[in-house]
């Protein structure tokens, strides 16, 4: 499992709708803000990149020291962004794909307003489990 990993889902109107520190590092809340700054800045790169390829998984789009930002863009232009220090690309891809399944289930919920914050604890638990499994 990665030491540091910050996972965030950004809605199509650039608002973060889910955020989780999924790293195994002990002081996980510590750098959350720093991580968000990096992820937010990486949105610019994603904006440029997302339209140049048909692939959903954009792999590593940005680096900050030894931290890498990997991005997965869904068809609805929701962006899954992961800030991580591990280099396990396949694992990250699987992680993203499974999270998308979860996200679609959230979207299917008639009470969920697309673009609003995801507060489901079930979703949170599942995402953290996936992070443990793949990252």
């Amino acid at each position, binding site marked *: 499992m990665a030491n540091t990993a910050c996972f965030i889902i950004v809605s199509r109107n650039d608002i973060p709708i889910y955020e989780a520190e999924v790293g195994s590092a002990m002081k996980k809340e*510590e750098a959350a803000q720093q991580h968000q700054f990096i992820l*937010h800045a990486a949105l610019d790169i994603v904006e440029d990149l997302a339209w140049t390829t048909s692939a959903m998984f954009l792999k590593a789009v940005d680096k900050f020291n030894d931290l890498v930002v990997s991005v997965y863009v869904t068809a609805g232009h929701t962006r899954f962004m992961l800030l991580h220090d591990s280099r396990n690309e396949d694992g990250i891809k699987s992680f993203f794909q499974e999270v998308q399944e979860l996200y679609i289930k959230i979207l299917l919920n008639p009470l969920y*307003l697309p673009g609003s914050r995801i507060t*489901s604890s079930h979703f949170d638990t599942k995402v953290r489990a996936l992070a443990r499994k793949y990252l």
Partner: protein
Amino acid sequence: MEYYPEELRTPPISLVSVVGCPELHQTISSFLHAEQPPINTLALPDFSKISVLARKHKDPLASPQPVAGILKRDWLMKHRTRVAAAVAALFRADYVTGDPAQWLQVCTDLENLKAAVHGRSIRLIVILVQTNESEDVSEDLKIALRKRAEIDTKYLITFLQNDASELRQSLTRLASIFAELCNTYYREEGRRIRTRIEKRTFNSVELNIRYCFKVAVYAEFRRDWAEALRFYEEAYRALREMIATSTRLPPVQRLVEIKAVAEQLHFKTSTLLLHGGKVVEAIAWFNKHIASYRQLVGSTKNSFLHWDWLSRQFLVFAELLETSTVAIPSTLPSHFGTSENPLTEWEVQPAYYYQLAASYLREKRYCLDSSLSMTDSASANTLGKNPESVLPSVFVGQSARLLEQGDTIEVLPLSDAEYINYAITEAQRFQDSYEIIALFKKAYESFNSLKAPRLASHCSTRMAKEYFIAEDFNNAKLHFDGVSSLYRQEGWVTLLWESLGYLRECSRRFGSVKDFIEYSLEMASLPIFSAGEVETPNSKREYGPAGLPTLSRRESVQNEVFGLLRGENILPLTDGGCSLIITEEQPVRVDVDVISPLRMALLACVAFHDQSVKPGSPTMMTLSLLSQLPCPVEVDRLEIEFNQPKCNFIIVNAVKDLSTAQLDMDSQDVRVENAPSLILPTNKWLRLTYEVKSGQSGKLECLSITAKIGKSFMICCQAESPASMEELPFWKFEDQVETFPTKDPGLTYSGLKVIQVEEPEPQVDLILGASSPALVGETFVVPLTIKSNGHEVYSGELKINLVDARGGGLLMSPREAEPFSSGNHHVELLSISGTGVEDESQTQFDNIRKIQQSFGVVSVPVLRVGDSWSCKLEIKWHRPKSVMLYASLGYSPNSTEAASQRVNIHRSLQIEGKIPISISHCFMMPFRREPLLLSKVKSLPGIEQKVSLALNETSVLIVTAQNCSEVPLRVISLSIRSDGDEDSRACSVQHVGGIPADNAPLVPGEEFKGIFSVTSKVDSPNLEVGSVCLVWKRDLKLGDFEDSGVVTEQKLPSVIVEQPPLIVSFDCPPHAILGVPFLFHIRIHNQTNLLQEIKYSLGDCQSFVFSGPHDNAGFVLPKSEYIMSYKIVPLCSGLQQLPQVSITSVRYSAALNPSAAAATIFVYPSEPEFIVGAKKQETILV
């Protein structure tokens, strides 16, 4: 890059030396410098100075010293400025050819020069300088000179000083020889050192690195970039291996030296790569460089050295990228992050490195601060002792201490502790903050121009933090404001939290209470729910003044700010800032509009239950307040403001009666309502419903709701309509129940903060009096009465409008171009005549009177209650048309009220315009007289034909006027008016009878006939007879229209007048008596100059017997009369048809038959006895 010495930054340039003839040096050196590639010249004016070229003498017996360092600091400098690759000795030709002493001097100089360059492979050139061609040096001398100098022929050059072209030639030759010699020299030197590397004649890594470096530099001298790169990389690789193995120096300084050398080697490599256009390789190389050295932090105490170094790497690389002449390839493979292209798009941008350099510099500053605080007390004294005597030593990356003991100066190595102290002192001299800000600013501007606002804002945030640390709060606030608006817009709550924390702190430093409250309220109302965690000491650095984004922190922020609002004092921070307090003298007011982020803190929404209301009658409105602050908010007082200030009211928290008492004192005319409690729980609407009464018509809009908390704080929210209310963008969660601002969901979707107050009911009557249809041509009068029965009328204005009832609006049609006396309008408003008070305000009345053909405005005088005013609208119809008459009266019931308080009253009336009288006519010939009219004979049936009249004969014109309206009329006169003088002579029309004496009444449907005799005197195919002129009036008992008759004119069609050739007249008595014979004559009058043959016949009939021929023919002489006489005896009584007469004119083939009426006679059974007066009898006989 400015840290690096000049010689490192620029590519090496070959160096040659010239000795002797100083007057030529300027020419030679400038020429060589301008060559491509350039050559630098070391000019020695005379041979006494040649010792600089000499090699430093080494004691061959001294034992080889251990290697003290990797690279010598001045080696590169030396080779660029002192060690020439070739030496040219200049001799004047006259010296060589002169006396033996001079020749001897030349030889000695040459010998000395040879001795000086001995040991180095410096090549020698001899130049003979001739002033002009005449002083040629003999070949023998040249050979001798060459032998002395031990050089080839081609290295002996002759210079012709005074001939420009020759001199240029010589210079070119010299330059090429120099270039060749330099190349040889540097190749030789390089090869010499390379053999050492290959043979491994040394056993230290340092030497290996040094030799590699030298080989690379020599390769650079001769522009062999590939080899230079290879050896720089080799040196770099060797250096990397040294890290763990070298023990020569104390550990800290060892690392410092290695990093310094690595930096130099890396710089060289990157420069070469970038100049070769290999941007991607250069970046990859840089990433490798950083990756291999980033972990070498060293001990905590001196880690700042590492971060400083790392930051410099980024900075230098950024500058290299920026100044690199090679443009950044625009066609980089689009997909980054793949194995074949591991770069991201931003890695080719210098800004990316600038911001990283700044980040590491921040790290350095932080480490330096912590080192300082650690060593603060312990080494205060040692620092003081630390002298300036520490100097950079001869080796790159090393330092040494200079010790002066009397005259001798000794250089001593330093211990690590001393070195660190020295480094700390050095580092303290720099203002890192400015550097960091400058770097971030550069990156920020660059990212902004690259249209990457988020990357730019990341830089901006860090820049602002740096400003904050440097206590430049103005700039910090400026930048934080910028980024927080982006984060707010994109909803990155955590980042917004942090920015706001800084902003809040800035406002505290400024002592700005309002800002402090605003930022605090916004922070406290952000949707952050994470459970509180204990702040670790380190987190202060990570999170800034805002602290961890947790729910408990939000609560504490709210408590702090509400404490301030309730009058508590926020004490200044220990390290500066002002004390914040709100006083009653300086109340604070915060405004919240629809786009303010503080809507989260307080959202006010107002809905009227109705859409419109009668003036003065009450209506309900619901006021809803919502707050997302984590703790419940208690409001002391709510002030609701409307656009009609009379409606404003105040809601007072009943619990706080203290403020109520105070309130009553200052505002007595404002309505005060009590509410049991005004507590706003988190995310729950507080709904208050009150009654509002507006006496003023128009729009009643709730403008704002001001919540007063504490004695001197107000938050003023712009009121919003629930129907058009924007949701709070941050507070939209799937698990949050959607709440409505009003209890009734329908009102939530349709409720508005505006209500329409209707106009007051008009208490004035407007009466339009006309009822009957209007008649075309007459001036139709519509009486209009304004009667006040409740309102007084001030500044009244009456508008009259005539509109076509069938629509279309216009009362004229351009197609019907027939001109009217008053334009093309079919219906026309002639005038509005006022009565009553008109006389008093005549002048004013006329001022605003304005009448057009279908529109009129008049002012209405002031009317008291019970007064009335009337006027008459005079409308004239030119065509039958149905018209809507609209009359609207606008007035203000009060003389003082503003114009908005006008009351309007509208009335309309449809008026039909009708034709009153239809006129028809017919022409007749005199009884039993038939002229032969040829135009009638020739006319074809079916084609409309003009009426033909006989010339000089009197015809009868009967004009019939029928009343086709529904009102009784009176005919005043009926006449035929001839149109022109000429026609009046041609045709005389005389009134014969049929018109009653005066003002004959004409009931609806009745006909009226006028008889005229028409005698035409001119033979004309188109004779205008004239127009029928009928003057009539309504049969009204009222005296209004006594004098005015309406003239209806109708033009009679033109007629044909012609000379009849024959006129037949029948002559018989007016009546007959049964059995009594009478004479019947038929006269045929020939009016022509021709003989007219006629045939005639008389048919048998049952009622009569007659004597005379049945058929006959005859001739009528010109201008004479032919008479046929029959004696007829009636056999039956009653109205009988005479025997059928048929007369035919042979010439014209026309029959001249009498009409049926003419051939009828009444037969009495016996002699009648008329009992009539003499006068009457006459009439009948006529």
